[in-house]
């Protein structure tokens, strides 16, 4: 099945392309627009982006596979990125991560719940160290996580 962006995504893409002196330079914002809409970038979307920008598809894959925030596989409807760098680890991030993974039933090597609702990934520093341990839910910061607020988060997501 081929890929086509929504009208809104396409508009965002066209605006991005117009900003750069070289078409191919708009690759990151184009991939970001595609992922913002679909949650990840399929091979078909890769091909679409390649054609749109006058790039070889291999160059798109090279970029897609380099940057941590890009996904080539679908993620859960909600993506939680939890920091495990130093300040957050010092503040007990490992316990929060462990608790969340257990609660969500995530085994080793799996980051997405079986029902596909939630993806939990441990990431490097989010730049929110004074609110350690911190995380982002779909890109929105939340800090000073405790076991209690983590439980509350899970309930919140349950209700969604």
């Amino acid at each position, binding site marked *: 099945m081929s890929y086509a962006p929504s009208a809104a995504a396409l508009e965002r893409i066209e605006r991005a392309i117009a900003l750069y002196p070289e078409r191919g330079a708009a690759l990151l914002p184009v991939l970001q627009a595609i992922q913002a809409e679909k949650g990840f970038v399929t091979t078909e979307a890769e091909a679409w982006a390649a054609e749109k920008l006058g790039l*070889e*598809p*291999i160059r798109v*894959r*090279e970029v897609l*596979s*380099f940057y*941590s925030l890009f996904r080539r596989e679908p993620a859960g409807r909600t993506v939680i990125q939890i920091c495990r760098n130093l300040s957050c680890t010092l503040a007990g991030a490992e316990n929060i991560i462990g608790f969340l993974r257990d609660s969500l039933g995530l085994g080793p090597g799996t980051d997405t719940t079986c029902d596909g609702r939630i993806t939990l990934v441990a990431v490097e520093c989010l730049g929110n160290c004074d609110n350690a341990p911190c995380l982002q839910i779909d890109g929105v910061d939340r800090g000073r996580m405790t076991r209690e607020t983590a439980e509350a988060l899970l309930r919140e997501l349950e209700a969604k």
Partner: protein
Amino acid sequence: MSEVKTVALTIDGRSVRAVEGTNVLRAAAAAGIDIPHFCYHPAFEAEGSCRMCLVEIEGLPKLELACATVVREGLIVRTATDLVRDARRAVLAFLLAEHPLDCPICDQAGECKLQDYYDAHGRFPGRFVEPREKRDKLIAIGRGLILDRERCILCTRCVRYLRRITGTGELGVFERGVRAEIGTYEDARVDNDYSGNLVDICPVGAITDTDFRFKTRTWFLERRPSVCPHCARGCAVIVESVTGYPLGPGERRVFRIRAGENPAVNGHWICDLGRAGRRDIDEGRLTAVTARAATGGTVPWQKAVADLAARIRAVPGPERPARIAVVLNSLMTCQELALARRIFTEALGLGGVFIADPPPGSGDGFLLTAERVPNARGVLEAGFAPRLPDLEALARSTEVLIVFGPYLAGNFPAGTAAPALSPIAVKYLFTSRAVPDDGLADVAVPVAVPAERSGTYINVDGLRQTFRQSVAPPRGVPSEREVLVGLAHGLGLNVGEPDAG
């Protein structure tokens, strides 16, 4: 003529002159100092990622890349200090840490940069005790090439070659960090006519060729330079063969044709057609004189040539121009063509001297020319007109037809040449290829292929290139030069010493 500007610098205490704009690595190489390197290749600008060529530059606090440092007047370079040695050992240790112990089964063994540099600059015990990254090892990436990701040291020469030289970009680097790996996109394959160069430029056994895989060991190979005969470019090639051990006694095989370096002609590259030419040397060869009327056994080529000479002498002198015809080809060397001229045109006065060649193809805008013969200009220089015979006219008057090369029939509609020429009483064919049973030759005499000969070709740009025999012909197989000299003697002609070839 503008003078090339040079600068004087010091490398390891020696005064060296280098052309302005050269990098230290090349300047050192020109002075006989080999600075080890993986990612640098003279065909590309400096990449600077392998870090193997780090050297000391006086006045600079850190080690600097020899490949990326341009020579300047008064530069002082040291390539053999303890610090440099330590840096090289570190790079080797890093590369070997994540490198598989494949040497015993890896085709690159014996010509592997990692092995060679470890031998010259390493010799330390390995200390990596962690689990290695596991990667795919047998990836068919196209054109018979195999990618082994565990062996790959990410020098990215292959990626850069396909982007900058062939412009086809079939390979890329995916992922990040130690997970970084080379690959094609989805099902895409390497698919260009210069893919074989990837094997040449890979410093390790990460890209290998199925044509060579597991067939021999590099240290058995004799490597001799030659000139590729498959088109008019005349690329420098290296013919790599084994004679005798570990093959059978007297057995000879050409295992590989690689690109030779010739800045004036092909740079560092050859096309895949040239590499595939390996098969013409070994396969489908005519190795003994075959005569249609023979009742068994064969005769030495000298006898066949002597018989031909006798047959020619049997034609009265004045009648020879009408009744003897010769077909030559443009794979013959200048020396062979000059001999042919002396014998056929000058001595025998023949008018019917024709040229039959393999059909042209299309040029690819890079090295491969439309002309698929190496010495068409040599043919012209020898005074021959590049024309095919009219078969019917030939059949009417000719009594003795002498054909050099297996190309005649291919220049006419299939199956027509042999019947058309059947009225000719005596047909001698001098060819390297096994002869189909089409009646085109009464006597077929084996001859050597270009790689087995010495001589000169004039390439598409008029450049004269002289090459020496790079591999011996099968036993009992002469070169065309030997055949022509033998014929001349049989005819009682004094053709003088052929040009040294």
